[in-house]
């Protein structure tokens, strides 16, 4: 394939996943992201059995791959209030981010792709009190992990923020949310030394 297999646009809160066309004429499932097992089953794109398989794969992968914390406060510092559950792993007690949803590549029904767990957005990308619609959507439903909530990841109107087990955010504008590091102790001696050509040229500065 000469193209990317998926494109995440954080600012728009959209994740695009390439279709693995079977070329047999079956329409592929439209939905890529489900917030719960029941939403998958109600979606009608996959069989009840396929939804259950995908959900349990994602749930198992979350236990295995999600970051693990010793205390609830450490976990919540990263995933927000009510963003974490306790889990007993190998006999030890941990706190891990909630299962906020799961994601399957399109063409899943015919392929081998494993369902990926989706975690609540990190507080770096969705700080508490964020007014980003994707963050509000995520925060309002993350307390009821696995509950019903948003819809397809392709729909930007109800898109919400998630993070993956590797910590990647693919929704919500995280650029503006990163905490500013300390401001320099050097003082500003001047400003505005670039940009004069752009002002004097009516034509574009890019090509």
């Amino acid at each position, binding site marked *: 394939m000469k193209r990317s297999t998926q494109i995440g646009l954080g600012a728009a809160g959209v994740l695009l996943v390439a279709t693995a066309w079977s070329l047999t004429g079956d329409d592929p499932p439209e939905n890529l992201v489900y917030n719960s097992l029941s939403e998958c089953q109600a979606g009608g794109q996959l069989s009840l059995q396929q939804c259950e398989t995908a959900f349990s794969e994602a749930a198992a992968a979350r236990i295995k791959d999600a970051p693990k914390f010793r205390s609830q406060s450490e976990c919540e510092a990263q995933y927000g209030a009510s963003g974490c559950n306790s889990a007993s792993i190998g006999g030890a007690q941990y706190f891990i981010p909630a299962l906020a949803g799961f994601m399957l590549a399109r063409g899943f029904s015919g392929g081998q792709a494993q369902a990926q767990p989706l975690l609540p957005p990190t507080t770096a990308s969705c700080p508490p009190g964020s007014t980003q619609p994707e963050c509000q959507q995520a925060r309002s439903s993350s307390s009821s992990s696995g509950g019903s909530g948003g819809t397809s990841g392709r729909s930007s109107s109800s898109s919400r923020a998630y993070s993956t087990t590797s910590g990647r955010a693919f929704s919500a504008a995280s650029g503006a949310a990163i905490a500013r590091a300390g401001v320099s102790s050097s003082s500003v001696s001047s400003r505005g030394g670039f*940009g004069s050509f752009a002002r004097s040229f009516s034509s574009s500065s890019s090509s």
Partner: protein
Amino acid sequence: MRRIALPPRPDWTQQVERLGFAFHTIDGETYWDESAAFAFTLEEIERDIEAPSEAIEQLCFAFIEKALGSEQTLTKLAIPAEHWDYIRASWQRGERNLYGRLDLAYDGRGPAKLLEYNADTPTALFESSAVQWDWLEQAMARGVIPRGSDQFNSLHERLIAAFKALREPSPYRLHLTCVEGSAEDKGTVDYLTDCAVQAGLDARFTYIEELGLLSDGRFCDGANQPIETLFKLYPWEWMFRESYGKALAGSGCQFIEPPWKALLSNKGLLACLWEMEPGHPNLLPAFFEGDPRCATLSPRHVRKPLYSREGANVTLIERGRVLDSDDGPYGAEGHVLQDAALNLFSEDGKYAVLGSWLVASQACGLCLREDASPITKNTSRFLPHYIEP
């Protein structure tokens, strides 16, 4: 290579806007045009576009090596002498580049020909990377193009990977900047900011007019934050000549694109490459204006200012008669003359130029711009492409 008329999505504006594509219409004129698309075979893409693009990039690197040692060449390229050492240092440090776009003439017949290299401040990136990609998926789903079609477009993943590798240690703090008041430039930088964030970088935007200079010689953003690494969608030839040009060498700032790209985003490159490799299959004969060898050019040729953007001040000449020209503010630094390409795609009075994308010097994407004249301008429309299964 074929131009295929296709029905646009009835809700195409909503579809492209949901991706955050705000400049699909510029000054009331359609810019994103999906009423047609260009179909390629995989062989055309790999043999005629991908491989030559990487070959041209290697040729450009060989040229930089030579040019940095030649005062005569740097003078011909109108690079200010006070910045020569600064440019040499950036090349010797091996400062990495992010991206560039080679504009090629190609109509499916014969080798693609280099028209120019937008090595420093290329736009049309977001629509190439994301909007065109999403169009392909939906066009296959709607059945207007064959299922199993593909696209020459791994720009998104390559940009993220390139951002990670631009500086050590990574992740690092990256500022991104462009001029105020251009939706197209801001849209391009917003997309690159998104890619940088996905690469794990601490990415911050500031307008170029807000840049300041700290007492220790470093540049700072509008919030007085020192700048370590700066992506600037703003041409080097302007930065060299503006008041902060003198502060560049002492700023300790790593620029993206690096200063050595100033040698490539200059139309003088076309004459220099032809001088190095006369007869190269992907080059058109070109000479600096005033060179007696200009007399050997074909009667139909193009006059281009060394510094020019989006077709401004480019003139198409046939037997001394001007066939097409675009007004603009450029040209004071000199011109090159280049043979007109014989394989520029044209059909029914429409002309298309291919933009072959390089990310970290790897060819990985394609865009097409179409216009009613042979000179591609900033009013040209963007048309999507696909690779036939």
